[in-house]
């Protein structure tokens, strides 16, 4: 069948949703809630195109082409609407892509990652990561004014993490083995970085209690940022600081252990429902409207598979 894309008539099979047809032709259509190999329902609207007939935006992931259909896929209006949908999602996404300490480090140490290894007792990994960036025998932290400690979010709760001291402690390890350890941080100015905003008083109390490991680090960096499609879309849409302030009713940094190494962090969830539609008596929606959440009942945790993390478009579902 023939459809018109940006004023050009194109032949398509008509068997696949628009997004697949468009991608096949070579258009770069972003999407979050769509996965070709999984059950899905239109939600994020990031893949929208304009139906010229009535000026309405339609999700290309769930619309099948019809004979004579006319669409616009990258007009100024379409792009700005896609951008708005991403900005709206970001306003309900309480998370840091990168940790403040890593961002500000003058010596480019991924302090957040080192601290994560440190708290998990992975001392060899911590040492190796540190030594891949700096000379451990002459560590710059010794004379540094420690902007990392000033940026540390823990400081807004009680006392910032003594990052410098911990770095020096790791650097001075005598029996450390060299292992494979690398940083996930992407600090390029062209890459979007979500910012968390402020903790509420209740959250501060809660965080103080839960994050009580040796370093007291809150582990701000997102563990799913490598695969995060939301970040990718925001980067492509060249969003620097979203227009709508973050306000969400989700508790920040609440990480729910689902099963084995699978964790769920609701504050990062964009409610696309992929995990809901693709688990049997597993993840489910609760409440409605802006208060709608994705939850997992305690008795249903056993029904989910670790692989579900792969289809989550954000870092809300991740493998630790």
């Amino acid at each position, binding site marked *: 069948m023939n459809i018109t894309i940006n004023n050009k008539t194109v032949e398509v099979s008509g068997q696949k949703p628009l997004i697949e047809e468009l991608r096949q032709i070579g258009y770069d259509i972003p999407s979050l809630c769509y996965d070709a190999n999984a059950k899905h329902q239109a939600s994020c609207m990031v893949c929208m195109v304009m139906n010229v007939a009535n000026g*309405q935006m*339609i999700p290309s992931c769930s619309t099948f082409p019809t004979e004579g259909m006319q669409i616009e896929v990258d007009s100024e209006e379409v792009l700005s609407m896609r951008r*708005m949908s991403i900005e709206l999602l970001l306003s*309900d996404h309480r998370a840091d892509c990168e940790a403040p300490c890593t961002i500000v480090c003058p010596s480019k140490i991924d302090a957040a990652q080192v601290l994560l290894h440190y708290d998990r007792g992975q001392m060899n990994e911590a040492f190796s990561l540190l030594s891949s960036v700096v000379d451990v025998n002459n560590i710059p932290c010794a004379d540094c004014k420690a902007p990392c400690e000033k940026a540390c979010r823990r400081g807004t709760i009680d006392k910032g993490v003594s990052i410098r001291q911990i770095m020096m402690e790791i650097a001075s390890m005598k029996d450390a083995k060299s292992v494979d350890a690398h940083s996930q941080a992407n600090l390029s100015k062209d890459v979007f970085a979500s910012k968390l905003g402020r903790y509420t008083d209740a959250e501060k109390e809660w965080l103080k209690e839960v994050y009580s490991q040796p370093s007291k680090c809150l582990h701000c960096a997102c563990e799913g940022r490598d695969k995060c499609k939301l970040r990718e879309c925001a980067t492509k849409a060249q969003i620097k600081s979203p227009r709508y302030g973050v306000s969400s009713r989700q508790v920040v940094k609440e990480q729910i252990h689902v099963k084995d190494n699978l964790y769920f962090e609701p504050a990062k969830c964009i409610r696309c429902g992929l995990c809901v539609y693709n688990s049997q008596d597993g993840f489910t929606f609760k*409440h409605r*409207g802006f208060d709608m959440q994705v939850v997992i009942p305690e008795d249903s945790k056993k029904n989910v598979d670790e692989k579900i993390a792969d289809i989550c478009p954000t870092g809300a579902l991740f493998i630790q």
Partner: protein
Amino acid sequence: MTDCKDCKLNSPEEAKLAMERRADAIIDRVGTSRDVIIPLLQAIQQEFNYLPSDALNRVYERTDIDRAQMISVSSFYSQFRMVPYGKHTIKVCVGTACHVKGANNVYDAFKRELAIADDSITTDDQQYSIEKVACLGCCALAPVVQIDNNIYGHVQPGKVREVLDEFEEFCKNASQADGDDDNSNGPVQGEVRLGMENCCKASGTAEVYDAVVEACKALGINVKIKPISCVGACNQVPLIDVASPDGNIVRYPNIKPQEVKEILLHHFKPASRLRRLRNAILNQIDTFHTDQTWDNILFTSEKDRTQKINSFLKGQYRISTEGFGHLNPLDIDEYINFGGFEALKKVLAENNRQNVIDEVLKSGIRGRGGGGFPTGRKWQMVAANASDAKYVICNGDEGDPGAFMDRILLESYPLRVIEGMIIAAFAVGASEGVFYIRAEYPQAVIRIRKALDMCRQKGLLGNNICDSGFSFDIRVFEGAGAFVCGEETALIASIEGKRGFPHLRPPYPAQSGLFDKPTLINNVETLSQISYIIRKGADEYVKVGTEGSRGTKVFALAGKVNHGGLIEVPMGTTLRQIVEEIGGGIEGGEALKAVQTGGPSGGCIPAELCDAEVDFDALNKMGAIMGSGGLVVLSESSCMVDVARYFLNFTSEESCGKCTFCRVGIRRMLDILDKLVTGKAKMEDLDRLEELANSIKKSALCGLGKTAPNPVLSTLRYFRNEYEEHVNGICRTGSCKHMVKLEITDDCVGCTKCARSCPSEAIEYTPYKKHVINTDACTQCGLCIDECDYDAIKKTPSMERTPSKL
């Protein structure tokens, strides 16, 4: 501890077992498949007053319903609750009409009166629970409160104690006047007709009914007391019609129980002369000694009163409400004598489906649910799809706050709606029908159930209807409280036992609807017009209405209008005619500011455009929509920003949450409106608001989202100056509490009435001196204003700023 039989029986284990047994009985009755979850939960809640976890565990063990589905569904619908409620539930209606008349103050007043803590909804003694509900559909009586099954109209914050006393009194002598009248012996001398809808009962018809029964007994006259369908003149109730045997009907609006005897004596002869004499004397004494009777006789003549109601009824045209005022809703023989089921029999006798569809097409009728899609085309689409099973659904999920047309049609003309549905089913070839009625309309559910039974008994429903070989039956599905389920795909999802998530169309329900079968969904009002079209012919039908919108439209007229009520007018009537002629103008002699049509999906039409003829296309052009037909009249004292925020708050609570623009976008719009009504907004916020609104209109997935910005867009279009004033900290109407304060003027004589009435102790008790309001403690409930006899308390601006630079 000693052995105690009773203690043993009441041990936790015993109680749990007993609960499980009760749950089991419900499961046995309702079923075990996943699609019965909503009726199952409704039955459990009815039994236990909430959803106890032990009962739910039984559901997991014994049915196909799992935890994921349970959480998903039970948390989506507002009807379900996981915590026990008090013995009685107080529902405060916050529909549009009630909102503009101060429903929130009423809610606060109940909470204060019952000493319910801020974070709680139930009294400490577990007697009362209180909640806000979207709309009870009694808009003409606003503000309205429902306690259990009793409805109270015109509830002001100061009358809260009175209402509770009345309810407690009712509980004590819970004898009900409702039900069938049993006539005593002797020939029937005539008929007394009264509307016994919920809203009529709320405004005193129940007492009048009692008075009629009593008076008949006392006077020894034998008249038939007949509950009838809604007359629509909600502002004139209690209202009775007295029909003499000679066919004369005299209408008495606004009567009081004390007047009943007099009226009856006027029309009917008491049994014996002696009794008559005695009654005449007694009656005279009554007349002279009750001031209520005096009141009416002296100040409003009967003629005056009747005239008022006649002007209300003039200009109306009856199709959906044909036979108003004399048809008993549940008298099937009377309905048949009146021409009921003629259309159905005609259709079945002709036995030509295409003819029926052609007739409906020719009539030009468009769906009354809001969108205005041509009904005939919908029928054609469903009929064209070959399938082993097809469904017809009657959409009675009227969720618009400020609308009650469907409720009245279902309660007053159940048989007409059913007839329309059977004809539709025949035309499209469906074998099963579902009545989807929202749970907030219990009376409608009861009446439709009764009416369906009657139809089955008469062979009008079920196997081989009227020996035509056509079989069709209808079941009732009670909605569980979700506005979005008025959207057809969400409604279908809810019948299937899922969350009310709409899905993208196509596929349309006509192709793949309920259980993936072709499904016809029509609104209550649409179906109620079908029998007329078939009986009188499309040629007759097209004579009514305008070119693009044929027939009549039923509206729920409410808000700040003198005579609110249910009206049916030909398409093309102007809004001004409706407000001025039928509605009798604006309350309190104020000027008309705007008319809000179409509820949360519609818009505000300013007074200067109210001369436009009302039909689908004209309203769309003005930025509003027909919607299902709520007309809320707004006067000078209504704040347009507050009205816009009210609707947006409603849609944000009712949004299903599926797509980004509706879930988050509407929330962000609400953020800006919240800033506006608290005086924190900046001028550029108005542009952001408009940008968001236009984007949501284009990009939301379903009708709810796409139309949700309409109230904001239309008010921005016609009342932008008011938005700008709010940016500058001014709300001229005093509706936005943050921008006004209450002040006592020099007219105060120091009578202390205000100080005594103030529930938050914001006014110091200073006899004979001018009183002063402590603004910090004042909650602006307005009780003192009502109490003050000297009109000495005024709302004044509290945060006016110099206009900010543009």
